[in-house]
Structure formats: C-alpha cells, structure tokens
C-alpha cells in the first residue's frame, strides 16, 4: 500500500495507463497519486498534454491524444514519478528517470525492477540521454518483455 510502504497497488498503477491500443505510441504514465503542491510536469510539457490547472495541488491528468511520449516530463518531475511506456511487438519500451551512478551503457543488460524493488526480468538498455537541461536526471530508454508492461519501473546494475 502506498500509504504504508510507498508501493502503489496494481489498480492504482492501471489507473494511470492508457489502453493497450494507445500504447502503440509512447505515452507518459503519471504516477502522482497524492495532492501535493507541484506542477513542473504541466509547465514542462511542450504539447500541453499534462493538465493540472490553477490549483497546483491537483494531481496531473494526461491528454493521451496530445502526448507524444517525448520524455521531457520524465526528467522534469521532482518526484521521479513519471515514466514513458510503449508496446513494440513483444517488447515493452520505457523511458525512465535515473539519478544513480554509474549510468548504464547502451546495449547493457541490467535487472528490471518492479515498484516493490524486486528484480523481475532482464532489461536491455537502448539509449541514455543526459543533457544539461535534465539537470543530472538521466533519461534511460530500456526494453523488457511486454508482459511486464504494468510492473517494470526501474533498473538495477547486475553485479550488485
């Protein structure tokens, strides 16, 4: 439970996913389940796809049709609560925020990790983006088997 161990329930997670048809294209998954005073996701989105409104304590809503899955919100969210998800054949491709060192390298196979911190699968590192605008939050593109679309959330180095 989110309130007792920081792990959202599957139903909470599912409430933030668009249907599988929409996931043919990359879409932002906004995992902000609490009314906190914060709106950089909304102001950073170049496509006005994230709506919070005047009261910045409101949880963000995604306009799925406007979202291009660019990932700018992923590294703008101070809570690291946004990922981008896409279904490509039998793979689920994600863009995730990552703030630990060392950064993975393209082509590496790391652990895929769920919201509880458990290793669930292998994760292939597709690309790493770390520019000045992201201010030390790297954007990692990673692919995992598509069955983990609703479980995968981050990566962990294998030799740990």
């Amino acid at each position, binding site marked *: 439970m989110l309130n007792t*161990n920081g792990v959202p329930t599957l139903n909470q997670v599912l409430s933030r996913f668009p249907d599988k048809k929409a996931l043919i294209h990359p879409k932002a998954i906004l995992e902000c389940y*609490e009314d906190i005073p914060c709106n950089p996701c909304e102001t950073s989105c170049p496509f006005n796809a994230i709506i919070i409104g005047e009261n910045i304590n409101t949880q963000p809503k995604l306009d799925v049709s406007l979202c291009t899955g660019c990932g700018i919100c992923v590294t703008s969210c101070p809570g690291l609560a946004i990922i981008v998800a896409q279904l490509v054949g039998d793979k689920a491709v994600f863009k995730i925020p990552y703030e630990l060192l060392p950064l993975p390298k393209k082509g590496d196979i790391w652990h895929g990790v769920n919201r509880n911190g458990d290793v669930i699968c292998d994760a292939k590192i597709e690309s790493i983006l770390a520019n000045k605008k992201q201010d030390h939050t790297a954007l990692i593109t990673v692919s995992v088997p598509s069955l983990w679309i609703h479980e995968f959330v981050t990566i962990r180095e294998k030799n740990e």
Partner: protein
Amino acid sequence: MISKDLIIIGGGPSGLCAAKTALESGLSVLIIERNPNIGGQLVKQTHKFFGSKEQYAKTRGFDIAKKLISDLEGFSNLEILAETSVVGLYRDRVVTVLHQDKYLRYQAKSIIVATGASEKFLAFENNDLPGIYGAGAIQTLMNNFGVLPGSDVVMIGSGNIGLIVSYQLIQAGVNVKAILEAAPKIGGYKVHASKVARLGVPILTSTTVKKAFGDTELKAIEIVSLDEKWQQIPDTSRKMEIDTLCISVGLSPMHQLLSMIGAKTKYVSELGGFVPVIDENHQTTVQSVFVCGDAVGIEEASSAMMEGYLTGIYISIHLNTAHPKADDLIKYYKEQLNMLRNGPFGIKTKIGLNKLKEGMQDA
C-alpha cells in the same frame, strides 16, 4: 554602535528573500548568519524541489540557494556577516554578535528573526553512541563535505526529510537497510516514498527503535512494532546490525531569541511546537521585531521563501519606505502562499496559523 534599517538574523531561504524585497525598498540591510555560508538548509539539498516556477520548482536546492544569493548582488546597502553568532537581542532592537572573536553591537529600526528550525531528537537507550546522527548532520557530512557517514544505515522517520535523506544516502552508495516510522502511515510525500521503495528499501510503519548496542560506537539496534496506541507489542523486537542510525523525527521552530526579548509565544502542534505570536504583517508582540520562515511554523522552503518576500515588504511599509510595488507584490505572494497551502499537506499549516491568530487576539 552600528546602525542599520533592518537586521535579519538567519541567512536561509526566508531571510534571503526578506533581504531582497527590503533592499528593493531602499533599506540598509545586515544579514547575520551563524554558518560560513549563507543559503541555510538549501545548500545541502541535492534533490529537485516541488512547487511551481515561482518557487523554483524542479531546481535542485543548492541551485536555488545560488539564485537567491545572486538576487542580492549589486545592492550597495547590503552587509552580510557570516560565521557570526547573535549573543544578545534586546527590546530596543540592539543586537550583539560574536564575529571572528570580536564582540560587535548593532542597532536597527527593525529586526527579522529568520532562525529556522532545529531537529527533534528521540529518547532510547544508548542514543548517545557515535554513529547516531540527526538527518541534518548526515546531509552536512555528505553533501557539504563529501564524507560518507557509514555503510549500513537505518533511518528513523518517514517524513519528507527522512525519505529524501534516505534517497541521498543511496545515491552516495550507502546501504539503507530500512526506514522506520512509528505512525501507521508514511509521513512525507508518497512520490518520495515510492522513489526509495523501488530501490528496495523497506519502509516499516508502526515500528520504532527501542535501544542501540555498541561499546564505543554503534553496532546494532533493536527495533519493535507498535500498536495503534503507540505501545510496544511484546515479542516483536528484533535486532538489526548497522553502523549508522539517522534520526529524522521532525523539526521545532527556533523561537529562543524572540523569547529572550519577551515576545509572546504559543504552543501550536500543527506548526511544530512553540512559535511566536504574530500579527497579519508577521510582526511579533515586540514592536518592530518580525519573524518569518520555519521559525514561525515548520513548512517547506517554498513557503519560507514566499513568507520572506512578504515580510521584507511589510517592513518597508512599517518603516515608511514602502516597496515601489508593495500592493501588487503582497497580493501576489499571498496568493502563492495560499496556493502552496491549498492541498492536504497545507491544511495543517492553515489550522496552525488560525490558532496563532487567536493567540494575537489574547495578546
């Protein structure tokens, strides 16, 4: 005796923002800061901040400090005394300080006490063993001086500071074995909790530390589960081997300087303990002595900054040199504060501030 229009005690976010609006009003300002650097707790904050762009959201704390400091550049009537402790404050607004082994006396037309907060501590057996730190000390060691506090850590407290410092410890390569929370629910923002949960850190609610073990330094702790009445549940205690225990169980407003001059205080639990009673312009019950930031109620730095800007403007009006945009800015910053306090976390502050208002009516 050196004279100033305004002396600000404390160079944290609130004090720096108050200095900005006071300087823009043409006042001469002295900032007195106990630490070698101004910026307060912001200089240790490596995470991106919440809020909206008015509060520098998605900017890392230490970069916000740089921004607030650079906002003060170019004002010739600003003086900053760092590594300086206030040793006396008097009702006629005389401030005596210790600066580089010299005792100096100042007098100001107006004073702002922006002393921030101090950490609460926890009573348990052997809580004085080396290896047991407050979260602020851990941040100072890691983020100011680049020193690792230990290798295996347990965090006590799941408020935002406990969660954020746990994340920073992991970033520094430290093994965070668990976060303990005595309450049945996580205290801080859930996004911070989820951040550490997915890194594999267990958050144990209804659990606290019972005792620490070690002869000359911390070797282990005993933890225990609590029932809904906060009583220890028998046979639930277990031992954890760690070399570092980090305590983050809340903050208390630093009202002591104001108590020295007899400013009225009131106990308001929602604001973190004893806080000075203030009027709607942040003036205490002592004429021309003002207070802002965590010293008048524990909140986020975002609110402390907005309060600071406001208090600087209130003082400009109080000293008959009103800020050129006083009316517009007061309206604007009040709106910002109201917005920040408009969610479930802000309700507590709002209740506390109302209780404080009642305190003024009794004064």
